């Protein structure tokens, strides 16, 4: 600690200069961001940020006067972060782009369209399907076919897919993705 203290004698003037440099660099990086240098923008921004960062580390955090172990420990954090970024990048940015066979409309549509939001056509489609698949039990007024009022649409969807083992409701998993959501939104609309 004595060795450490000797370094810090009359050190406050150094702090002032470092403070000044940090402010200047901040102004510089903001100024650069207003002009378009293409890819250079991000390179300059990162370069300036790294310079500012190392100034803070070396002088404000006293890493410059610290023993070797602490310096190695601090640097190793960035090494392992770089490994994480590098190897994740080697996957995410190198994935093949798959050309989808244009012919099959149904599957492509169902897989990507977010069907969990209710739309009028879905509700109408749901109504037709209801008459075919659900009327047998859920004819209004039938004891076992009542709908609980506070059931969420996600729960309706799950019940349609999984069925209810204790309440003699079969699972309708063989229905298509679109049909299931249509039924869900139709039943949801009945509740309100």
């Amino acid at each position, binding site marked *: *600690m*004595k060795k450490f*203290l000797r370094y*810090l004698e009359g*050190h*406050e003037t150094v*702090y*002032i200069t*470092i*403070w000044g440099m*940090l*402010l200047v660099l*901040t102004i510089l*990086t*903001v100024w*650069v*961001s207003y002009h*378009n*240098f*293409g890819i250079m*923008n*991000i390179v300059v*921004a*990162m370069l*300036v*940020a790294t310079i*500012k*960062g190392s100034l*803070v*580390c070396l*002088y*404000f*955090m*006293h890493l410059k006067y*610290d*023993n070797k*172990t*602490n310096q190695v*420990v*601090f640097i*190793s*954090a*960035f090494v*392992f*972060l770089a490994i*994480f*970024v590098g190897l*994740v*990048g080697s996957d*995410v*940015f190198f994935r093949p782009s798959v050309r989808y066979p244009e012919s099959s409309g149904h599957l492509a549509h169902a897989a990507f369209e977010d069907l969990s939001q209710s739309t009028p056509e879905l509700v109408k489609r749901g109504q037709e399907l209801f008459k075919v698949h659900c009327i047998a039990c859920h004819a209004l007024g039938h004891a076992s076919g009542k709908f609980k009022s506070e059931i969420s649409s996600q729960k309706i969807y799950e019940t349609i897919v999984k069925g209810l083992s204790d309440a003699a409701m079969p699972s309708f998993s063989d229905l298509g993705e679109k049909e299931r959501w249509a039924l869900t939104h139709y039943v949801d609309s009945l509740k309100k």
Partner: protein
Amino acid sequence: MTQHVVAEHFESAEQAFEASKLGLWLFLVTEILLFGGLFVLYIVFRGLYPELFHEASHHLNRTLGALNTVVLICSSFTMALAVSRVQHNDSKKAAGLLLFTFLCGLTFMIVKYCEYTHKIHEGLLPGVHFSFTEMAHPKAPLFFSLYFMMTGLHGLHVLVGMGLIAWVLIRTRRGDFSSQYFTPVELTGIYWHLVDLIWIYLFPLLYLIG
């Protein structure tokens, strides 16, 4: 001036000081890897949807961001001065500097509060709650999820830092520290500088996209 007693399993104050410094640097490693996770998300999504980041970044208030950067840099400066004052047995001045650093932290949080309320009002919210209409990009909510997660976690660390500074301020006023024993001030200082270091990277990455 209360005399600090060195913990009995350490041989000397020197060993205790060195141990707590190494302990803190190891803790900083975990902080860097914690934030590192979010930076990896940033790199991945910016790499996949660069135009989204350009478009979304215009909806962030660059002046407030710059203001916050200056505020944190000044607070780092005064924190370093405060640590140096304690090492020269000048507790009174150190207390003043610590108070100034605390107030800088407070201003940072207030500016953050304004930014957040503005965003919530406009509907620029993360993921599912995104209800901002003008932005065409289908993955727009992702940017704001990143924005809120990164600045939110950083804001949390600023709050923890302010708590530590307050605790160290009280003990400085009580005269617990001197050139013989100033470890808590040193550790709080280094932690605060890390919080500033992370913001130094957050500011250009989120606000200054060309």
